[in-house]
Every structure is written in structure tokens, then in C-alpha cells.
């Protein structure tokens, strides 16, 4: 899965499409979080 499609439960209208994070992006976010906490 590379993207996420979001639908409304009341009429199944598409509300948005988002890119899915892969492991590299998760690593980058964790690394940024550590730096932010240390600062």
C-alpha cells in the first residue's frame, strides 16, 4: 500500500488521498523526534 484513500461513512464520498509512510520515513521521523527532544 502506497497511498491511503479516506471515505465518509455517511455517503462513501472520497475525502482525501494520503501517501503512506514507509520504514525509511518512519526512521526519519523517529530520528527527528529524538533530536527535538534532546534540544
Amino acid at each position: 500500500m502506497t497511498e491511503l484513500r479516506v471515505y465518509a461513512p455517511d455517503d462513501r464520498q472520497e475525502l482525501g488521498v494520503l501517501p503512506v509512510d514507509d520504514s525509511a520515513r518512519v526512521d526519519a521521523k523517529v530520528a527527528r523526534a529524538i533530536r527535538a527532544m534532546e534540544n
Partner: protein
Amino acid sequence: MARAEALIQIWSATREQLPDLAAALSKEQGKTLKEAHMELERYIGPFLQYAGLATTVAGRYQRLGPEVAGLVDRVPVGVAVGIVPWNFPASLFGTKLAPALAAGCAFLIKPAETTPLITLRLTEIAQQFLPDGLLDVVIGGADVGDCLVSHRDVARIAFTGSTAVGREIAARAGHGLKRVSLELGGCDPFVLLDDADVPSAVRALAGSRFYNAGQVCVAPKRLVVHEKVADEALDLLESRLGRIVPGPGYDGSSTMGPVHTDRVRATLEEQVADAVDRGAVLVGGGRPAGASVEQGWFVNPALVVDPPPGARVRSEETFGPVLTVIRVRDDEEAVAVANETPYGLGASVWSSDQSRAFTVARRVQSGYAWVNALGRVYDELPFGGVKASGAGREHGVEALESYLEDRTFITPVAPGG
């Protein structure tokens, strides 16, 4: 003090946008605008609460001998991860994020695959008042969740969701020796004894059971009612059922939105069909008709009365507007039925005799119990389950403590110093 200021700024900035946020939450999750507004109030509440508690985090100094002393520092546990479900994507985010920030932790939130949009909007507001990178959203499914839970630099995991997924997370977290809190499923009993104020009890019961279209982990799923007052309770419940209007959340005339997905609706319908096949009586139920509801995942509220032992609704979590009704002969049988599920999240007991109610409530296995009280969860008090409903606690000072680590230092001091 900087943490407390940031928390207050997040509270204030989010509060200013509540009407827009409520509309977005209602559309994405399905709940009514009124419910969305209530949920967002529950999202921002903890920011004020933990702003106060953030200023109380303190270490200690202890003299250990004539020339030695100890210092205990209280430090953030590290990077924390929140994994939240789709039924309360905002409030369950806030109950995790606020104590984590108060403790000084960085926080990564993984929303459910079906409710990432409200999470992104709330995060964007909060990020304005936080150092870059301290708060972020991770988007994806179970594989992304696994990646976070197994990540060597993640120290704390706060999960709300199903018991099955909770077990997996606990196993992975255990392997990494990470701190974890698990708020899992529930099949809460609502015990109505024969001397109770039945109208008051039914009002509280209906308000809790059908709120958020019945998609609440801590809500009465089973009415365990003394046979002497069962018919009175059923009449009152049926009357209340008739006043519930399923419809789109944005429509002011709707009092109950759809359930969240087709899978939720299918599971609920299977559970009800199983009970009826086994001899239970169905009151209400089915799907509403009409142009405004034909495209969505709408269901009518229902009572499933007298399902026999073994029926799925007696032991499984029913995640939708269905209330199971089980008659009992006395307090002993009420406690036995209340405890017959694998779960132990919440419980309610109603009796005009407070001592009797407390005696029963203490015997019902739950982490949170209401005794002659409305089923509200308070931010000030620890919340969590026993048995298959989880481990660890959220809310209260207990949640703040779970994001802190003690570090002890021993140091020489001058004699008499």
C-alpha cells in the same frame, strides 16, 4: 514551565477552531456534529489538565550518610508512540499526547487508516507551539504500526484498539522491553438490581449505549437486569429506541450517525443474527430507509433480549447500537453473568441501596465502575481495564508518570554540607 505554556497554547488555538474541526471530524468519522464537538472538548481538556501537572514534576534529594547524597531526576522516557482507533480519533489522541508532552517526550501518532485527516489537522495546530519534529503523524496500516512498535528508538507505546492487536503489540513491546499501555475492548455489564430507580438507570444506560452509534469501548453492552424490574426497563428502553433518529452527522435532525465502515456493520449484523438464531428476541434493528441514508453504513438501534449462554453478544464486544438484555434472579447470578466475558473494562451497578450496589460493583471484574452514576470517564482519574481489556492506565497523574523515568545519581558531599 515552557511545556506548560505550550500545552496551554495548544488548548487555546485548538479551541478557537472547534466548529470547523467538529465538522471535519463528523464527516470523516460519521458521528453527529454534537458528538464531534463533545469529542473535541475531550481532546483539548487534557492539555489544560497536564499544563498544571507539568509544573509538578520534581525529582528529589536525599542525604544518605555524612559524606554522600542521592539525587533522583525525573526525565522523559523517550520517544513515545500513540496508536489510536477510528471511534474517537481526536480524544484518544489528546489523552496520550498531553501527558507525553508534559513529561517532555517526543510523540508520534499513528491514526487508524480510516481517520487520518482529523489527526493531521489537530497535529498541525499543535506543531505551531512545539519544537520542530517533536510531534509528527505516521500514516499507514498494520505494517507501519509494526515498524513503529518494533523501532529500537521508540521507548513508550500507548495503544487503544482491539484486544487481538493489543496482544500483538504487547508481545513486540515486551521483546524490546518498551513501556506499554493497552486500552482494549470491553463488553461492559450494566447491572440493574430490583430496588433501583429504573427510569434514572435506563436514562443513563441509553445515553451511554447509543452514544457515538454504540462504537465505544467503555460502554454498557449488556444489561444484566433483575427479573422483577426487567419488563419495566425493557418498556422504557423500547421507548427510547423509538426516539433515536439515524442520519448523516451534519444533519441537525440526526441523533445517531452511521457506524464507521461496512465491516463494522457486517460484524454487528452477524452477532445479532447469531443471537436470534439461538432464540433471542430482537427489538428494533435492521437498516433505516431513505435517500439520506442509503449510501452510508447506517443501522437502527436494537435490543437483543434473552440470548442464551453461548450467543456471541453475551461475550463478544458489540461495536454498534445494540444492547444485549439478560435477566437474572438475584445478585449472585448478576455477578456471575457480569463476569462471564473475557473482558473487564467498565461496569455499572444501580440499586437504591448504595451499600448493596458497592458490594456488587466490587465483585464485578472491571477497571472502572459507576455506582448509581452516569457513565462518564473523568480525565482526573486513572482509566484502564483488567482481564482482556488491557494493562496500564491512561488519564490522571498516573498517565504522566508513565511517560517519566527515574534516574538516580549518587554524589559525595562535604561533611555537614
